[in-house]
């Protein structure tokens, strides 16, 4: 164990070193004037932009407001997709008939790039928040439904038979065998879905929004504020990591038996 811990510390230190060298090189490029100032803000300028936005906001919106707008849309759309996708996926997994009636629609939607139907959603529901949340719902839903269905399908038949022969009714089999058996795969689906939804929310905000981090980056690009663009990219990267880490943490907490099966 001690050896492993030592290795982990070494890896972290090397990682920090690499990031440090990267940031230093980035700063030097600016300081030495290797590329025009307008094209690349230095880390110091990005830091200054963060302080500026924290104090004064960006074009009438506070930083917190923009973060809340992006994360709020993303999480709302995602939760709606979970609320509908998991039950529907489970139902399709249990009933062949339900699968036959509905799955072809889900499978048509699944590989479709979300932005392609955003145009249609805007046409139908206007340019407001509803069309964006709808977009994120549609981005996450097919992945979640498919994972839930596949999760039910790969539950070991022997376990179902064993439970039945011990006198479990179908309700009990669902709660104690099928649902726990499907959970690991459902969570894998949730992780893929939230990453896709987060990508889509930023794309949607670039295209049509008046707040959110994606909008901030896009608006900054119009004004050639590369410091704010880079700040936005860094913030989005951090929130992307936070979202995926959060789901991994919930996953390891809830599905503690993953890999022991």
């Amino acid at each position, binding site marked *: 164990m001690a050896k492993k811990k030592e290795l982990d510390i070494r890896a972290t230190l090397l*990682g920090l070193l690499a990031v440090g060298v990267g940031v230093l090189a980035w700063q030097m490029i600016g300081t030495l004037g290797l590329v025009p100032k307008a094209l690349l803000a230095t880390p110091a300028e990005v830091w200054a932009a963060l302080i500026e936005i924290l104090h004064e906001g960006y074009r009438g919106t506070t930083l917190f407001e923009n973060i809340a707008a992006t994360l709020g849309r993303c999480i709302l759309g995602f939760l709606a997709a979970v609320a509908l996708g998991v039950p529907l996926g489970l139902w399709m997994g249990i009933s062949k008939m339900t699968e036959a009636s509905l799955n072809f629609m889900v499978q048509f939607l699944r590989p479709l790039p979300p932005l*392609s139907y955003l145009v249609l959603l805007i*046409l139908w529901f206007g340019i407001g928040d509803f069309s964006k949340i709808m977009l994120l719902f549609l981005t996450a839903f097919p992945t979640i439904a498919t994972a839930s269905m596949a999760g039910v399908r790969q539950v070991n038949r022997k376990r179902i038979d064993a439970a039945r022969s011990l006198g479990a009714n179908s309700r009990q089999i669902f709660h104690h065998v099928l649902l726990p058996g499907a959970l690991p795969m459902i969570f894998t689906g949730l992780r893929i879905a939230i990453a896709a939804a987060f990508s889509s929310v930023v794309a949607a905000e670039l295209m049509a929004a008046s707040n959110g981090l994606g909008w901030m980056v896009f608006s900054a690009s119009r004004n050639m504020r*590369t410091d704010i663009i880079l700040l936005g*990219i860094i913030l*989005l990267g951090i929130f992307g*990591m936070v979202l995926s880490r959060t789901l991994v943490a919930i996953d390891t907490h809830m599905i503690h038996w993953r890999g022991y099966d």
Partner: protein
Amino acid sequence: MRPRTATAISAAVLVAGWLLLTLGGFVSDLFLPPPSQLWDALVDLWQEGYKNRSIWEHIGQSLIRVLVGFGTGAIVGTAMGLLMGYFKTIDSLFAPFIEFLRPLPQLAYLVILIIWLGIDEASKITLLFLAALPVAAVAARDGVRNVSQIRIRVAQSLGAKRSHIFFYIVFPSALAEIFTGARLAIGIVYATLIASEIIAGTNGIGWMIFDAGRFLRSDFVFIGIIIVGIMGIAIDRLILMVETRVVHWAGKQ
């Protein structure tokens, strides 16, 4: 009732609903065009193309971008991932950047790429390259890490050199995961491409959808979405076909 019948009934209900809504005059053609109008639009696109370019040119443009961006990103990413899996130090040095890039919404850095490289092909190809790179790298790294230690030991005890072990044991064993990564990557690249064509395109199938949307030509939008869907499925199938050819032993170990 057989499952096939259920699918047919469900699809029929869907089409009937569409016909009822459009032909019954419940929704405007602007929002949901009737089948006849879609057919006319398809014929129109086929014969006339869209905005001075044939439909094949738009499709071709999009496919070339996907191919070049994905190809370069997957090759560089896989090479990086193999090195990262093989050498702990390289992994520690690269990991922070890869871990940062992977969950980062691709469109976020399109904006800065456009400022740096202009709005033409270079920024789009770089975008797709960066979209494919971290996915391919992580898959290759995990592939190398999951190689059975016993196989490596066996080869070593039979006197294999380091390079032999890499080319005959590690690389082939990692290939299955590399291909899984490639399928994941091309899905992301394709979705990113369509998004980038919509946000900053002047041609390509994604741009066609966006442009048609601006002029409220929902019939072209629908056709565009269907073409995009079919292309996506075709690309995925193609990779799957290559995969089953190359890694014919996957799942049989």
